[in-house]
């Protein structure tokens, strides 16, 4: 099993969610984050002083998946989150050793 963690543009959430559910992925967890990267925010001007905005609002999506669907999940996220502009974000894949569904104690692929 793997954990796919994707940093995306906030307004892309619905598209990504639909792409994932159409693959049969039935769960995911989303958090609001601030991203620092190549994309720079507009400088904010306040009372005549200018401040660089370094951190931009992004969403982090975490999905635990079985290895067999990993590639299609990556592709689905990648396609649905793309606008082609700087700041589209990243996908990170990490190993996942164990998954448990709290309600039933089912484990691993049954828990996803």
């Amino acid at each position: 099993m793997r954990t796919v963690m994707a940093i995306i543009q906030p307004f892309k959430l619905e598209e990504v969610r639909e792409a994932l559910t159409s693959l049969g992925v039935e769960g995911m967890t989303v958090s609001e984050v601030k991203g620092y990267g190549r994309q720079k925010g507009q400088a904010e001007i306040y009372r005549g002083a200018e401040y660089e905005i370094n951190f931009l609002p992004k969403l982090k999506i975490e999905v635990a998946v079985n290895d067999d669907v990993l590639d299609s999940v990556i592709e689905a996220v990648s396609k649905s989150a793309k606008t082609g502009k700087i700041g589209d974000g990243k996908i990170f894949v990490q190993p996942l050793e164990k998954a448990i569904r709290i309600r039933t104690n089912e484990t691993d692929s049954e828990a996803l």
Partner: protein
Amino acid sequence: MQHIKTISKNIGLAPIALFLATDQCFASEAAKLDSGDTAWMMTSTLLVLMMTIPGVALFYSGMVRKKNVLATAMQSFAVACVMSVLWMIVGYSLAFTDGGAINFFVGSLDKVFLHGVGVNSLSGTIPETVFMTFQMTFAIITPALITGALADRIKFSSLLLFLSLWMLLVYAPITHWVWGGGFLGDAGVLDFAGGTVVHINSGIAALVGAMVLGRRHGYGSENMAPHNLVLSLIGASLLWVGWFGFNAGSAVAANGSAGMAMAVTQIAAAAAAVSWMIIEWIFRGKPSVLGIISGAVSGLVAITPASGFVGPSGALMIGLSAGITCYWGAVVLKHKLGYDDTLDVFGVHGIGGITGAVLTGVFAVEAIGGTPGLLEGNVEQVLVQIEGIVATIIYCAIATFLILKIIGCTMGLRVDKETEIGGLDSNLHGETIQ
């Protein structure tokens, strides 16, 4: 508040200082309560209180960062409470009684604890209790305005002590100078509702305070943008609405003078908001909420001394000018001089107050307030206005500086660095907003 003048004109009485001192002794013909005037003055009184709580409290707390919101709102609220008590105990007496030999400078202690202010005491056509409370709300808002320059870094205890002393040693005397029988009123300075007494005064104290206190940590590098301008917009709106009590209330009657004060107040506020918005649109590329509300307040400040003396077109000009001068004060001048006036109290109230005081001398219309201005050929009035400005600036600056230095050397003025970085809300008051 130009009721000295208005009352004199109407009923030929001596200045109100004398008037107030004697009104309980004999029932003069003129001293008859008018229920309409009383209704309006009670309304005006609560409006000016509303300007501070929640007006200034919100205007200021929306502009600070999330960690200092409650502390900032608390400053206005606590100031309102403490000043009320002090005004009742001694402030009113100092400002509005006859000081005898030192009457040019300050009143006496004849009315401490409101001694002699009874249920039937009149002040013109309204109960003296109402006049006293109306004046109390001015003694509340003036110190409350100053807090904006000290925000984000002053100790709460030092702030309360500073403003208590300031109200008694600076505000009460200057009020006496202009409205209580002191030397500026005698000199003919026009200040209908407090351009000098309230705005220049608080603006200068703010500037001195900001300089004595020093800049905030991170000033110039960290982004210190307002955390929630909706609060500030509510505050600015309530300031605007309440300002009718401030200006039209200063007629101390529900009459034509009050009506004109209301009209010109509305026009100047709107004009200044529009002119600030346009300048900001041009120079910053986008009109901001912070800009338009600052503009409206600038216009309200500038029309304050003028509100019983100018007509609609004068108000339009004063408003348009104030939007420009205060924009310059808050956005250009501050950065040039490098002091950290957190919420631009000097930029808006100081500069706006001076703009208004001078322009009152320019646009005054004899047919409206009894005194002609520069445009009607009375060159001298502008000079008298400047005399009032200069006297206020000098006295206020020196006295404020001394008070602050004494407190600074004894109990200290600023919170420590960790408290400042962690935020005043949790560190000083043990509370946070979610």
